[in-house]
């Protein structure tokens, strides 16, 4: 009789259970907290709606018989798998209210892909400010996760009135073409569904991917046919030149170059041409079925299982009041399979937790901050002060560095759950080597080839935001999420105001002057910090890749995990893993 099992069953099948049900009292006390979470969610939902309605109304596209980018994604992506990213990203505050591309991670025909398309409602998919950076974040994600990149191209080229914001520079709109070449070089396929008119930049956007599938009305070309005037020798437009331009435009009959007649019938750049928009998307689905992907069974260590506690509890557990502590393990228990967690060195570096959990049956590492006060710790303070959760101390930094290094050895993707106020400061902290240990953690992360994702649950502050694999970890961080309670700043506004104006206050006080003007400036600074650290601001400026509701976090972690295990570049045989053995001892 044949028998089958998952690997290292004694370690992974049943791991230590964590978390507990919320008490009636906890539920009662959290009502106001849930309201505060909802308040932020409503602000974010309004912003998301505004972006979705940017440009011309969807109705106009539908009346022409076309599909919007949102219709195309809806048709293309497997139901329930879409995890949007960069939805509110608009760092240059464009008048369009967005960067003109829509992207995220999703499954197509059961396989994970990073998916991006031009918003054809916004200037027919023009290059606008901030768009190149958005695209680069997406191409980097495909590279990090080693999954196909799927483009829905519909790009009219540079918004000519603002060419200086997109055309030139190291990370300008030309850089994605090099990224596409890089992905191809690395063996990461790029599928391109092409719609509409794609001249110049749009042409390179069309030609640079791996597989090109076109709609019958699409074209890609070095330049468009619409530039009817040449050089104007006068250096300005006068009435005579305007008249010539009017006549030229009226009589202009040329078709756009690079049509299907050319690039399917003659050059054969296009693999397929479809007479319907859906046909192009069906073609992408066909190619997605050909993409390399292991059966999940290859890497699963147990059957997938949901957490034992409801995800909605998260809105009650994570306090909106940033000064309130909470039990971080209660958060973790609502994210991991069957609410299980195999913790690494729980008695050492108590301010952080690190360990292995399962997500959809795959082994995944989690690292996060604990909250509260830790009397008798850190050991180097000798009782001079107690440790406070969210801060990092010597043992915690050493533990994280060790754990990350071992995860690298065992090929465990890492999910970081940040809620951090910084690293301990002062002479004792310096003597305890915290500066070097912080950078040592950065070094440990960079030394691995691992994919990591970061969730800034609440606070992302000071250098601790960096060392816990924040988005600055360009080579490892696949994406960073915020929540409706996220605040990201170098330090709290009150601390910053005190640091900036304390000496000025002393000076004014000694001179016997009214302190009100200085106090006004300090309070203005505190308000400014508040305004520029809230979730919608973090999303708009790119501090995070997306703000996600707390109950939705697991879905994104599932996407991250599934993408990581779809076609990994490096494999550690589960039975040769070291970390589970080290944890058990």
């Amino acid at each position: 009789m044949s028998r089958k099992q998952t690997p290292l069953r004694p370690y992974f099948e049943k791991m230590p259970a964590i978390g507990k049900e919320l008490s009636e009292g906890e539920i009662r006390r959290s009502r106001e907290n849930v309201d505060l979470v909802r308040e932020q969610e409503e602000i974010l939902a309004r912003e998301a709606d505004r972006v979705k309605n940017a440009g011309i109304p969807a109705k106009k596209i539908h009346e022409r018989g076309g599909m919007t980018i949102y219709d195309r994604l809806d048709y293309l992506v497997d139901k329930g798998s879409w995890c949007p990213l960069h939805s509110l990203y608009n760092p240059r505050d464009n008048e369009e209210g967005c960067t003109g591309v829509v992207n995220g991670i999703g499954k197509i025909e059961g396989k994970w892909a990073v998916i991006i398309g031009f918003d054809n409602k916004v200037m027919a998919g023009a290059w606008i400010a901030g768009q190149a950076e958005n695209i680069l974040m997406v191409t980097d994600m495909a590279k990090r996760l080693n999954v196909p990149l799927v483009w829905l191209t519909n790009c009219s080229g540079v918004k000519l009135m603002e060419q200086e914001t997109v055309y030139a520079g190291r990370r300008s709109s030309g850089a994605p073409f090099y990224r596409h070449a890089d992905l191809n070089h690395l063996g990461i396929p790029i599928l391109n569904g092409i719609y509409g008119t794609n001249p110049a930049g749009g042409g390179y956007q069309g030609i640079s991917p791996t597989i090109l599938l076109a709609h019958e009305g699409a074209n890609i070309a070095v330049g468009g046919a619409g530039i009817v005037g040449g050089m104007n020798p006068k250096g300005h437009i006068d009435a005579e030149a305007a008249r010539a331009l009017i006549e030229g435009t009226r009589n202009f009959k040329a078709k756009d170059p690079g049509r299907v007649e050319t690039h399917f019938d003659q050059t054969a750049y296009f693999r397929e041409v479809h007479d319907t928009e859906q046909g192009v998307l069906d073609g992408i689905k066909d190619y997605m079925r050909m993409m390399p992907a292991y059966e999940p069974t290859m890497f699963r260590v147990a059957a997938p299982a949901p957490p034992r506690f409801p995800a909605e509890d998260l809105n009650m557990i994570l306090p909106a009041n940033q000064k309130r502590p909470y039990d971080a393990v209660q958060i973790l228990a609502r994210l991991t399979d069957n609410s299980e967690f195999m913790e690494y060195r729980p008695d050492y570096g108590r301010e952080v937790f690190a360990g292995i959990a399962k997500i959809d049956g795959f082994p995944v590492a989690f690292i996060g901050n604990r909250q509260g006060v830790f009397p008798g710790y850190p050991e180097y303070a000798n009782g001079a002060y107690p440790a406070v959760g969210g801060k990092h101390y010597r043992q915690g930094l050493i533990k994280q560095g060790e754990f990350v290094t071992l995860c690298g050895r065992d090929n465990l993707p890492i999910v970081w759950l940040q809620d951090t106020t910084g690293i301990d400061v002062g002479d004792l902290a310096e003597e305890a080597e915290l500066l070097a240990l912080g950078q040592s953690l950065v070094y440990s992360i960079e030394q691995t080839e691992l994919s990591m994702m970061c969730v800034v649950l609440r606070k992302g502050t000071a250098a601790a935001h960096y060392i816990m694999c924040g988005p600055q970890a360009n080579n490892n961080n696949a994406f960073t999420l915020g929540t409706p309670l996220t605040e990201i700043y170098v330090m709290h506004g009150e601390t910053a105001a005190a640091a900036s104006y304390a000496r000025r206050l002393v000076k004014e006080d000694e001179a016997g002057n009214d302190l009100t003007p200085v106090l006004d400036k300090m309070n203005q600074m505190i308000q400014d910090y508040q305004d520029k650290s809230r979730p919608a601001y973090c999303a708009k400026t790119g501090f995070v890749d997306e703000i996600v509701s707390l109950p939705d976090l697991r879905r994104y972690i599932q996407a991250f995990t599934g993408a990581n295990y779809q076609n990994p570049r490096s494999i550690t045989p589960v039975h040769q893993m070291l970390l589970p053995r080290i944890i058990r001892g």
Partner: protein
Amino acid sequence: MAELTSPIAGKVWKIMVAVGDKVEMDDELIILEALKMETPVYSEESGTVSAIMIKEGDPINEGDILISIG
């Protein structure tokens, strides 16, 4: 009679109840402040507040008795 003690050293920031108030288990009774963090102290049983041993602003040590519930 149950006595609530302080879990940490710090300062009493807010007292949410008065002597004679009826409280339920898990109600928030006192908020302590230490290291810029608020540490709430919850009732461990239902009953009536019979005595409050501290006032707002008092410094406290770990293990100090804060409140009695009868």
